[in-house]
């Protein structure tokens, strides 16, 4: 039971719930600058959870992963996105979903689905983080929901990055991190991906004069 765990293990579970809350907050957020800030908080929370798991399990590689996560997900990528938003001049637009209440309800449904799918996996793990496997899967699917429900490029990219947060969290929760070479490779890929996304925003804006990706619809199978 929860009350028998030491305090820092309870803190791991509480932080995991807060990470899930930031995913919901991202789904509900309409403006792009607060969205980037919530994403930065999510990265920070995931990093702190990783550090606590490192302390708990004694795997010191995880401290390095936590530092990498802070540097990349909580500092560099939000800074990059912020700079892009400023240069594109879109910080005052509405970037919300069509029906936010429905999206939130679907999100809650996804969390329940993830709990169900993760049950057989959780039964096999003996670590304190086994309950957080479902949470990490939920963060991944909520990131995908954000990608689907948004029509503006920056919001989609934030959803994509939040999905990557969930994947990193899943690695920490299920297996206490992956081998260092893989973690470095994944971090490198995310970094390059973020930079390329930045390049893309300008290309999209130059070609259709807005960042509304719903308007990217010239290539279709319909007969003209």
């Amino acid at each position, binding site marked *: 039971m929860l009350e028998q765990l030491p305090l820092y293990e309870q803190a791991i579970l509480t932080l995991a719930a807060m990470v899930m809350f930031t995913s919901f907050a991202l789904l509900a957020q309409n403006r792009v600058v607060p969205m980037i800030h919530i994403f930065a908080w999510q990265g920070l929370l995931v990093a702190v959870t990783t550090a606590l798991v490192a302390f708990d399990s004694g795997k010191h590689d995880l401290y390095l992963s936590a530092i990498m996560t802070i540097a990349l997900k909580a500092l560099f990528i939000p800074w990059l996105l912020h700079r892009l938003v400023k240069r594109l001049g879109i910080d005052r637009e509405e970037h919300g979903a069509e029906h936010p209440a429905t999206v939130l309800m679907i999100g809650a449904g996804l969390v329940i689905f993830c709990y169900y799918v993760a049950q057989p996996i959780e039964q096999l793990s003996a670590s304190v983080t086994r309950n957080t496997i479902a949470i990490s899967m939920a963060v991944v699917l909520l990131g995908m929901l954000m990608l689907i429900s948004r029509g503006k490029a920056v919001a989609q990219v934030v959803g994509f990055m939040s999905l990557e947060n969930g994947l990193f969290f899943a690695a920490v929760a299920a297996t206490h991190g992956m081998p260092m*070479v*893989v973690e470095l*490779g994944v971090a490198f*890929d995310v970094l390059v991906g973020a930079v390329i996304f930045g390049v*893309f925003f300008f290309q*999209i804006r130059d070609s259709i004069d807005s960042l509304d990706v719903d308007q990217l619809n010239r290539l279709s199978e319909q007969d003209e």
Partner: protein
Amino acid sequence: MTALYLTLLIPLFASILLGVFGNHRGAATFNVLATLAGFVASVWLALIVLKHGPLGGEAGQFHIDSFNVYLIALTALVGATTSFFSAPYMAQEEANGRLGPGRLRLYHASYQGFLFTMQLALTTNNLGVLWVAMEGATLATVLLVSLYRTPESVEAAWKYFIICGVGIALALFGTVLLYFAAARVIPDAEHALLWSVLAANSGSLEPVVMAIAFVFLLVGYGTKVGLVPMHTWLPDAHSEGPTPMSAVLSGLLLNVALYALVRVKILTDGALAAGGTHSPHLAGNLMMGFGIVSFTVAGLFLHRQRDIKRLFSYSSIEHMGLMTFAFGLGGPLATFGGLLHMTVHSLTKSAIFVAVGHASHIARTQAIEGIRGLIQTQPAVGWGLLIGTVAIAGFPPFGVFTSEFLLLSATMKTHPWLTLPLLSGLGVAFAGLFRHLHPMVYGERPEGQVAVPANMWPVVLHLVLVLWLGISIPAFLADWFNQAAILITGEGLL
């Protein structure tokens, strides 16, 4: 090992060098030379494996066995011939004003970078590094799709990035679950992601976790293979990017993604078979399902196409569906056919795209309506396109016929009722291809259409190879196919 390092490092260094000097006059020539050097290194590697057997040891970071050795050489070959085609082609595009020298630098650097990630994905033993390489391949090519900066190409590139990015992210989740299952069985954490170690211990992996992991990996890597319904990026990306890139995407990336999928399937089959669950053939059945749906849908979509590159990219989806079905069916006959199909499809499709590139230069458009009278204008291009399409549609004596025949025989043995959808699908695809092709090669030659400087010998080389593979497979290659079939299904054909 030197051969292995050379195969990997040549494209990497070439990419870095071209990133700095790529807008120089001789960049295209350097590109060709680099790919030729890579091809030589890969042939050397293949010879070493031929003489000494699998490379990489029990738990090394690299693992070359009969499954990937010919794929490595094939990748290097297609990369080389396509770069030979791309040199005058991109020069012509630059002359037409579609791109500037800065973008050429990006093009050349990304081309070599893409080849590096392909070779890394093929040679690595570490499933995590395989994932990193697949994601790296996406990143290397995404800026190439939007190279021409038209609204359509930006849209295609965005779609490619988002769909493949999400797909690959799901594959990473599957890899994490795989690692979770592996870490419980293999004590050394550093070895728990090595394929060779996992394959040796696949019987003790937890079946339920492996099944869930396989589903995520199938959806994830299946996105890059182009399985329906995750295929929507493929026609756009292949048609909007420059033609050499379409050739390598169709010929190489789809193959490597399927290779990754089959590697994971070997592990899943071992885990499910030993685990005694109620669905030991889950992996195969899922692959069969996705394969046949892709095959059917793509065949039907072929008829509606108006753009020549979209037409052939749907043909790629159709063939990848067929290959996925073959590997899902299992058994030595179908697996041998699938392996052969991977090889010949790659060669044929890249040859077709080379011919298509020249055809679109002649007609100055990519629309099927606008391309007419190719044989009259430039017989080499016209005949190349015609014979290439004949080959890909499955006519004997080309290699595609042989592999499809093997697959149909295997289907008739195990799932006879599936033969009918396969045959009708093949017929539908054949009809679709030729219906569009006939006016293009035989129609009335329009006014003022002249021949362009074209380099058709890559096409000739590839088609001759496919013909050779169709008539008589060389002994060492058949041996490798056989050993790979043993690796994948447990029993060999020969």
